[in-house]
């Protein structure tokens, strides 16, 4: 078999026109027979056969062909031509699914690299329905494929922060035998006092700030409530009234610590709470701000919340929870009916350290303090050494 290639006819053209075939496909030709006409930008030229044999046309008339291209073949006889065509047909059939030739799209270098890396097939690329495929298109295709293959659509990935919270709650339930008591406390007086103080100090003061100061002050009378249970049968008493407080503004639950809350005024505590809220919004608490609490206050004082039963932080013996403020009617001492504002304050306690009776006493003390708040407390010199 002899290949017919396009000769170089001039220097100006990269392609010539194959104007027409002068011998028919499958015809028997002899040496020096005219085979075809090529046309350059300058002239038309006929190509003659250099051999005797049977012609096979590989390119149709009207096509453009570059110098060197194979445009036809001359076979010894018709049988040789038929055998060649059959073989070529078979080869073409096996090639169709893998060959990228004749693809109806263009890949950028990035797209080609991505497709190779993730084993994206030509069929998948074609399914994009795009003529020009970029790296980002393949990326999106791979992402869709991964999403549909590996992750069920109802699966939500939990953040690191949420997983840490889960671990603490699980640890609490596993290790702390907790009990729980709730007391109802009137807050009319505290609300009036905070309103008046807010106006005077220019700082917005709420019940949480008041409760934190009152809570911190109870450490002297109730040291076991500010302690760490020790497996050997001891409770290690805290030496400072550091009060942890829950803050959650939608970016995860944090428990920053108001340090030495027994020496702070309600105004100072309110200012710290304000700072905590900013840090919680931005998620930029320092590690030290979140450590060292002796007791924790769980704030659940949204409207309509009666009370939330808190867990007990492993390493502490109590967590106090504050519910939302309720309005109701009460019988006054003179038998009349008055409107009353009140909250439910709950106490979850480690039964290895504290019992129910003490828990009630603790809550009653808190109630007395809350109902006659002493908001003007100024920082006193440390009552205890250390």
């Amino acid at each position, binding site marked *: 078999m002899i290949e017919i290639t396009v000769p170089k006819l001039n220097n100006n053209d990269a392609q010539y*026109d194959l104007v027409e075939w002068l011998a028919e496909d499958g015809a028997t030709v002899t040496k020096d027979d005219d085979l075809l006409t090529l046309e350059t*930008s300058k002239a038309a030229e006929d190509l003659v056969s250099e051999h005797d044999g049977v012609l096979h046309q590989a390119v149709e008339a009207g*096509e453009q062909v570059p110098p060197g291209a194979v445009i036809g073949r001359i076979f010894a006889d018709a049988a040789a031509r038929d055998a060649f065509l059959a073989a070529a047909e078979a080869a073409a059939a096996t090639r169709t699914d893998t060959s990228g030739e004749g693809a109806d799209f*263009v890949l*950028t*270098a990035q797209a080609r690299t991505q497709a190779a890396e993730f084993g994206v097939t030509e069929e998948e690329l074609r399914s994009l329905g795009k*003529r*020009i495929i*970029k790296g980002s298109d393949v990326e999106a295709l791979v992402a869709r494929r991964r999403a549909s293959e590996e992750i069920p659509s109802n699966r939500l990935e939990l953040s690191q922060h949420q997983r840490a919270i889960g671990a603490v709650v699980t640890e609490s339930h596993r290790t702390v035998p907790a009990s729980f008591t709730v007391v109802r406390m009137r807050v009319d007086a505290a609300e009036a006092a905070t309103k008046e103080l807010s106006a005077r100090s220019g700082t917005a003061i709420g019940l949480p700030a008041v409760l934190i100061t009152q809570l911190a002050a109870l450490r002297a009378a109730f040291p076991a409530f500010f302690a760490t249970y020790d497996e050997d049968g001891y409770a290690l008493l805290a030496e400072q009234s550091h009060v942890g407080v829950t803050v959650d503004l939608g970016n995860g639950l944090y428990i920053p610590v108001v340090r030495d809350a027994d020496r702070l005024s309600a105004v100072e505590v309110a200012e710290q709470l304000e700072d905590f809220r900013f840090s919680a919004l931005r998620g930029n608490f320092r590690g030290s701000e979140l450590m060292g609490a002796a007791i924790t206050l769980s704030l659940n004082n949204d409207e309509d919340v009666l009370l939330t039963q808190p867990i007990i932080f492993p390493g502490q013996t109590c967590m106090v929870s504050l519910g939302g403020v309720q309005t109701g009617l009460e019988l006054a001492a003179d038998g009349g009916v008055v409107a009353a504002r009140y909250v439910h304050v709950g106490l979850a306690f480690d039964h290895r350290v504290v019992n129910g009776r003490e828990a009630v006493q603790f809550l009653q003390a808190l109630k007395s303090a809350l109902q006659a708040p002493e908001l003007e407390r100024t920082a006193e010199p440390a009552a205890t050494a250390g």
Partner: protein
Amino acid sequence: MKRNERVGENLNQALHRVMESHEDVYLIGEDVLDPYGGAFNITKGLSDRFADRVLTTPISENAILGVANGLALTGNKPIAEMMFGDFITLAFDQIVNFSAKSVSMYGATHPMHLVVRCPVGGRRGYGPTHSQSPQKHFLGVPDLHLFELSPFHDNATVLEGMVELGKPCIFFEDKVLYTERRHQGGPVGDLFSLEFTGEDPFPVARLFIEDTAPELVIVAPGGLAQRAVDAARELFLQHEIACEIYVPSALYPFDAQLLAEPVARAGRVCVVEDAPPGGSWGAEVAHQLYSTCWDSLRAPVRLVHSADSVIPTALHLERDVLVSSESLELALKELAQ
């Protein structure tokens, strides 16, 4: 690929059509008679059909334009051919001092229907005096209009437009284009879509990649169009930097208004031409873009020219002097950063 007509064939057919439809169109130039039909075969067949209106001349560019000016002044529509655009300097006086001024210097507007055809550009190894791009020498002459041949525009429309303009026109024809296939519809290569913007008979060809916001705008006259397409194709396939290419038919006066919005959107623009640097068409376009898009430009307008050099004859030396798709690609890559 099925064959499209060559740009030169299209231009030849355009000349046939315009001579057929206008009895006052004359063609004048060196060796334009059949069977030679001009040095690039562009006037092939014209003298056989319109023997009394195709005038062949000796080597005498100044006289060719003198005769053409006389024909135009008396109400005819001459088309003059410079065998090589380089020789137009010999007719500079007739064009600048007579053709252009005749439109207005006689007190009332006097239409001058004159077209001067100039094969220009290199990449053929024709050397320093047969390869130049002299467009810049004719910029800023009142009433003188400059146009350039492109593989996208239909020359029947462009030629008719120039013949009917009533102001003298110079048509710069990159000689490499004559043997190239004319683009007729459909995508340009495997990447670019083509549409026209602006008004007939001299719209601007716009080549763009569908569904992709361009980071660069390239302004390239017809002779540079293919090199711009090749450079932009590589830039996109290798680096995913998308370019939008504008190929104007009218070079001067140039209206940058059409480019203002796309250039402002991309913030980066490159103007490419075959002339050496200094007082060039690209500088004129850049000035207009600075005026209209100053606040939106994220980088200085990039000009790409040939080297500041005569054009060597040896092909390998000529290649280093003229703009190539590779040198253009490099400049575009720098501009994109």
